[in-house]
């Protein structure tokens, strides 16, 4: 495959590179601030329900943004559900082993990150559809293994009970999720504003060229995998602690890999604001549709994915006219 295929059918346009001004971070800050104020709004009798939706919107934001970080290095993965699930299961099992939750959370994330290094190393040379199918197969292998382990170990096909996060205080849970999303945003900005950005972009746009330029492909691809998967695992921890019951079929469901991918593309690939914004819009739309469209809300994801690819290839971020490639966060 030629290098051009990876990034664009047409040669990359050399837009004048814009400096990133501090103002570019304003929409992002606004969004986070708005999210932080949400629990203090007069929500009325449905407060508990709305807070739960908002919680899962934040989780979706973490998932989408972490997926995007991996995609920036040219690796379009369908294994995000695997790390989400590994986070959830790792957390549950570590709690069962007697670790305090504050310790179990980062350890579960690091464990998932460690597993991702194995996957990343094995799939290092795959690209495009081969990479996508290999990561999909990996997810299924992980799910099957957990499902077939003895029930005393990981609950088998039935699932595991998980103690509620923060004693079940939904407002506290919400702020924990908010904090983790803010952390993810910080990590994403760090990737965007340091040399990592150039290394990832170079690898994505043409591996051979990047190698010639002296970019260590192995190191940066694995780093992208590690960062992305650890963050996805944190999202998994939040999920496990909120629903206090996890089973292999739902936790490792393909939907958990599809949603972050669709969200990022709909919001705007390779940006920080895009996936977060996409998560907000899509989750709200999903909840609004939930009443009219019963079990097939994924229909919307499929449709959004198709329409974005056909008409909005740069996502919501592409709608903001007058901003050329370089200046977006």
């Amino acid at each position, binding site marked *: *495959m030629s290098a051009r295929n990876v990034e664009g059918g047409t040669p990359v346009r050399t837009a004048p590179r814009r400096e990133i001004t501090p103002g570019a971070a304003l929409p992002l800050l606004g969004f986070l601030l708005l999210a932080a104020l949400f629990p203090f709004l007069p929500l009325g009798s449905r407060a508990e329900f709305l807070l739960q939706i908002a919680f899962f919107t934040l989780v979706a934001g973490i998932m989408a943004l972490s997926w995007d970080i991996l995609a920036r290095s040219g690796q379009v993965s369908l294994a995000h559900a695997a790390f989400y699930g590994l986070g959830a299961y790792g957390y549950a099992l570590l709690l069962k082993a007697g670790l305090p939750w504050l310790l179990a959370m980062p350890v579960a994330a690091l464990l998932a990150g460690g597993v991702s290094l194995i996957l990343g190393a094995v799939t290092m040379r795959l690209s*495009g*559809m081969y990479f996508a*199918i290999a990561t999909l197969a990996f997810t*299924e*292998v992980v799910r*099957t293994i957990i499902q*077939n382990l003895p029930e005393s170990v990981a609950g088998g096909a039935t699932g595991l009970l998980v103690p509620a996060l923060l004693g079940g205080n939904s407002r506290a849970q919400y702020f924990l999720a908010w904090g983790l999303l803010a952390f993810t945003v910080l990590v994403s900005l760090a990737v965007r504003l340091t040399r990592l950005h150039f290394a990832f972009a170079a690898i994505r746009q043409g591996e051979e060229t990047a190698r010639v330029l002296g970019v260590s492909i192995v190191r940066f691809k694995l780093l992208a995998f590690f960062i992305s998967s650890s963050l996805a695992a944190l999202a998994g921890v939040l999920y496990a602690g909120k629903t206090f019951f996890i089973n292999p079929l739902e936790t490792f469901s393909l939907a958990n890999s599809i949603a972050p991918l669709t969200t990022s593309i709909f919001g705007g690939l390779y940006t920080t604001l895009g996936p977060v914004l996409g998560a907000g819009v899509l989750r709200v739309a999903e909840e609004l549709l939930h009443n009219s469209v019963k079990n097939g809300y994924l229909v919307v*994801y499929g449709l959004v*994915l198709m329409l974005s690819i056909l008409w909005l290839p740069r996502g919501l971020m592409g709608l903001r006219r007058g901003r050329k490639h370089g200046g977006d966060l």
Partner: protein
Amino acid sequence: MDLFVQTLVNGLLQSGLYALVASGLALAVGVVGIVNFAHGEYLMIGAFLAWAGSAFLGVDPLLSLPVIAVAVFAIGALTYRVSIRHVLLAPELNQMLLTFGLGILLQNLALMLLGGNTRTVTTPYQASSMQLGDLSVGGPKALAFGLAALLLGALYVVLYRTTLGRQMRAVAQNRRGAQLIGINVDRVYLIAFGVSCALAAVAGVLVSVLLFASPTVGLVFALKAFAIIVMAGLGNLTGVLWASVLLGVSEALVQTYVPGGGGWSDAVFFLMIFGTLVLRSYRGAR
């Protein structure tokens, strides 16, 4: 020993179905250059059409098969016109995600309209079986294998003995070159994509008789088809046959000889895809 031979025969019969699905996918990948992640969904459509024909109109799936094939050819051609055609020159990522979105859309549309239940088609020959010495072969299975062999034979004749087939192979080799010598590439793409979908639908009709129709039935077959074309090497139709036999037989062996085979056979299969992909990448196939 008998068990072993029986297992081999079962695997071989199963591989006919796999070859049918995989050759359709190989056509889409090889000729159109599109990795169709929605391939299994056309199989699902075929299975449901067969079920609907049998449940509402009382038509035997094998009789409705030609009609279904033509109908799904039309659906595939329509899909090509409204979506695939617009991303032919787009980055591979966009093509992949477009068909992926299409797959999610079709699968969940079916889930929404028909529910997640499996629907079975009852036919008078469903329980029939043939005895060949010590071996017993299920009637529908043998029938499916025969039909698959027939269709694959026809596909080969079309590809290697007709003008259309020659055009398809020309386009597969070099799109621009084919265009320069006056081949209507767009038309060839449309037909190839339609035939690809129709082959999946025929397999779907057989699946509805052998197993059942359900919204998610396609995914498994699509994944197996991916495994097969990866093993065969892109665009290698003869390789598809061998790879199908290999997959069918090894699956049957796992199911028979690995204790608790039901649960683990999936993992074995996915490990196989994984292994194949990784091995190929290290042998530098790309």
